[in-house]
């Protein structure tokens, strides 16, 4: 398993969360992605955790002896990608 060493590294690029912040949460007993997401905002940005949740899942496994298949991924919520409010109201003038 790859062990990331530089703890200042950003793991969630939408919310600017560092590896250290993530590891502190896990060390404090937050060992489920749903809990970590809510406490840290990890995965709450525009990409909805496409990158960070995988990294966080790996860190949980490494720190708690869980297996990847035991890690429950948080719900993907709509919309799949960001939509401008103007598009939702059918006003596309700003889209040019």
């Amino acid at each position, binding site marked *: 398993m790859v062990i990331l060493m530089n703890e200042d590294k950003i793991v969630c690029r939408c*919310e600017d969360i560092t590896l250290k912040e993530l590891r502190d949460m896990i060390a404090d007993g937050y060992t489920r992605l749903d*809990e970590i997401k*809510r*406490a840290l905002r990890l995965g709450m940005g525009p990409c909805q955790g496409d990158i960070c949740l995988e990294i966080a899942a790996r860190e949980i496994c490494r720190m708690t002896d869980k297996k990847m298949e035991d890690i429950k991924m948080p719900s993907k919520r709509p919309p799949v990608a960001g*939509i*401008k*409010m103007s598009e*939702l109201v059918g006003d596309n003038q*700003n889209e040019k």
Partner: protein
Amino acid sequence: MKNKAEIVIIGGGVIGASIAYSLADKGMKDIVVLEKNYIASGSTGSCGAGIRQQWGTKMNCILSKKSMEIFENLNEILKVKRDIELKQGGYLLLAYSEKEFKQFKENIKLQNSIGIPSQLLTVKEAKEIVPQLNGEGIKGATYCPTDGHINPFRVNQAYVEAARRKSVQFYTYTSAQDIITQNNEIKSVVTDRGVIETNKVVNAAGGFSKEVSLMAGIDIPTKSERHQILVTEQVNPILKPMVMSFSYNIYCQQIPDGSFVMGYGDPDEQYSHNIKSSWQFLEEMAKKATYLLPFLKDIRVIRQWAGLYNITPDAQPILDASDELKGFFMAVGFSGHGFMIAPFTGVLMAEMILGEKLSMNIKLDLKRFEHDRLILEPSVV
């Protein structure tokens, strides 16, 4: 898992956690909290994160003011590791009819009389606070600068962590399945991980308050209803207060990270435990929000979710001890405003459970629904 407890609190949301903390703080031992999922997985974690003191009944004004005083010092009181992200940007409440504005004038008098620093504003003054506001149809507004936003997950977790330090036992992913009684007394709580003997139970089950009460054989008039919310991408700070209107039916706030959180109550929503998101909500919400705050048109919605309001017939909570079953306490039916009064609710419930004199006079008993003593709060969403 423990097989005996002084008290079992059902529900690990902000209400259950706040009660557990207050009880432990007053010296009670052997407190167990059951949470069927994870901390803040229910209504607390899906709420709009707004906190206001602008109410139309004295009781709600005091409950929310006392809670705000605790919120303002919560980082220190609970010795939190992670900041609760209090932002006091105020609440701007908009009136769309002379009748609504008249009610607001009454409310301001009441709020000021107990020291809430709210004020009546003309449309022009409201636009000084929110220059981008579409003033069309607005008759007037009120503003309370100390209202605002707090991160509900952080508050919930802070109460849990502080309570744990006082030896409260939280069992997450553990659901209450039955409450065993005999001769109007509680004997035990059956969970999916074993039985806990206890004589006291607190129902703090949020959207499932009715189901938990029925386990104890007590029927309560609470119903759950989905309320949806959306959040946008993060942008520079441009909107200071929460903008809210009862009659136009909207609330919208820019939270400290820069995203906008907004919602409205769908009058056609059916009572259920459904918390799925709908596209109809996205469309209607976008229409409402961009009419009121046109600059939102250029901002992207990135996520939506839903949670449950647990509603009583008068949209006020039930904070009570059962007359029928000794040791059964209820802190339920917050009707969409539980988070903002959770700190002081915890204190009051702890006093009630320990048989102390309550530090404020509340009439939030269950019997009010039978005797038609409903509380008429004019300023509720």
